[in-house]
């Protein structure tokens, strides 16, 4: 264990330079995020992830932004275990009808001010699951959405760009 820890100190840093915030995401946010709310929260946000019917692909890439290469926490962003601790809900999936109530309840359990980030193609409009008897079709049909991050699934870099846009307005 000592050797592994020691190498961590001596072998240089894996973490990569942050990407520039996504321009399109910035534009979307400009309309949605009030300046005053940012002043209250500063540059640190707590995120609660909600899987509302995803295939788990988005979750894998959301996990990845915590790894040594992307190191989400250096930006003051972190994932929390309860919606009651969260500023941001990060929602994936085409919102299955079986998850609609849970998503809505999670949203209402999150204190204001709050933002909702819809992640992935399904979360935008249901994606390839659109039209199914079992899916609602998009996160915005259940809770208000402030920012969409596109991709199937979005890469960790796409996710970082979107989240940095949340902070840099």
């Amino acid at each position, binding site marked *: 264990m000592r050797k592994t820890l020691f190498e961590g100190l001596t072998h240089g840093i894996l973490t990569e330079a942050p990407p520039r915030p996504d321009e399109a995401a910035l534009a979307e946010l400009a309309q949605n995020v009030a300046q005053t709310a940012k002043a209250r929260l500063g540059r640190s946000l707590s995120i609660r992830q909600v899987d509302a019917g995803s295939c788990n*692909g988005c979750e894998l890439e959301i996990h990845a932004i915590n790894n040594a290469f992307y190191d989400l926490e250096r930006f003051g962003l972190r994932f929390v275990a309860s919606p009651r601790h969260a500023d941001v809900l990060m929602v994936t999936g085409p919102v299955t009808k079986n998850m609609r109530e849970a998503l809505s309840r999670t949203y209402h359990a999150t204190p204001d001010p709050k933002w909702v980030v819809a992640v992935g193609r399904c979360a935008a409009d249901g994606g390839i699951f659109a039209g199914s008897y079992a899916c609602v079709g998009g996160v915005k049909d259940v809770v208000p959405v402030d920012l969409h991050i596109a991709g199937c699934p979005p890469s960790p870099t796409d996710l970082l760009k979107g989240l940095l846009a949340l902070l840099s307005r």
Partner: protein
Amino acid sequence: MMPVSLLDQLPHHRLVAEHWPWPRVIVGEGDWRVAIDHLASGHMTLLGLWGEPGTVHMALLGGSSNEIAVVSFECESGAFPSVGARHPPARRPERAACDLFGLRATGTADARPWLDHGVWGLRHPLGTRQPPGEAAPYPFLPAEGEALHQIAVGPVHAGIIEPGHFRFTTNGEHLVRLEQRLGYVHKGIEGLLAGASLDKAVELACRTSGDSAVAYAFAFARAVEAALNVDAPPHAVYLRALMAELERLANHFGDIGAICNDASFALMHAQTGILRERCLRAAMVCFGHRLMMDVIVPGGVARDIAPEGLAQVRALLEDIRKVFPRLIELYDNTASLQDRTVTTGIVRPDYARQFGAGGYVGRASGRAFDARRNLSYAPYSELSFEVPVLEAGDVNARVWIRIREVEQSLSLIEQILDRLPGGEHRISIDPSGRICEGIALTEAFRGDVLVWLRLDGNNRIVRCHLRDASWFQWPLLEAAVEGNIVADFPLCNKSFNCSYSGHDL
């Protein structure tokens, strides 16, 4: 070649002509009960049970051989004799078949809905399409005693994880009963598959369980190719296995780290997270998608490996070989970690056998089934590898199976790179003009994925069933945690890492 001996044990009315590569037979009620006898006595293993309007199907694996047969029962009155009544692994699939198609299992001990939570706006969406019934609370199984209390968890869990509900009954710190309630991520995939083109269908297969995108597309493509009696070109077959092994590596690294992390050993999580990321980056360079979605298609692969891909994979192998042995040592020599994983969450070997548990869950409990070995599909029939098996059945054993499988995957990838045949990467799939059926199993990182489908002769899906390994692993988690402390549940759960999406469909 027709495997005769398994069919000899399954009396039947008639053999379905266009079903490949294993036979499908239509049986009457008496013969259906004979098949149930084989399952209940342990002579055969249930590989899957699914419905379609008016018919219920079971896929069976022979006990001592590696033969497979599909047995179909035509439910004239919308009902069939329950398999689950005598063979518990069939219970949840039967409940799902009832929810989706309205096929009732007569004599079942558990007629509660499973995937249907009463909010679809209709009942039996793929079958009789009835108006919704009256909303009723879901009756959990009782656990009674003076000192017992319940803990309800989910569907929204504390981590970045899929949704499901766990109802724990505990006596102080000890778990007396866990009951799962799943179905929250039911997207209606099999409904969307009906009538879909092959392109759309393989896209859906990739997104059945995102962590097994390759394994699902691989199984789906092979089922289509079996039905149409065509073979993917050798170059594509080897690339498929390369992707399958890269997917296995990435997932096993993720799991090994995540299990240790649930025992508060974050160092391992950080280190294996780096290895996982390197695998995904290599996949991106080789195939243009980190999770390798939409690469495997019926007829081969949609695009060839990038020219710089082979060197990238060799560099990846070298990286892993340098770092991983030290991580194994770290796992093995950290007493505080072993204290959490050894003897925790034991799956009894007889349960693993009875449920036909695949993947590391089965192989950590003495069930030596690996579709790559037992069914020996291409190109694994030409590659040499071992299937690690342990008997202990605890969290530690499931970690060790993964460690050993990482080593085998490294060797497999090396063999694939050394032998990669040249030639085309895709052949066109021409419509056959006749209705035909195919079945295939591939070994995903968590166990065997089964795909059964019927094509309409014009390259459209009539009915496609996808069965994740999790169907037969989730129930064993309920048994494995009994008597463990509440705080060890995340550790047990992560050591299974069952799919919610793959199960809920």
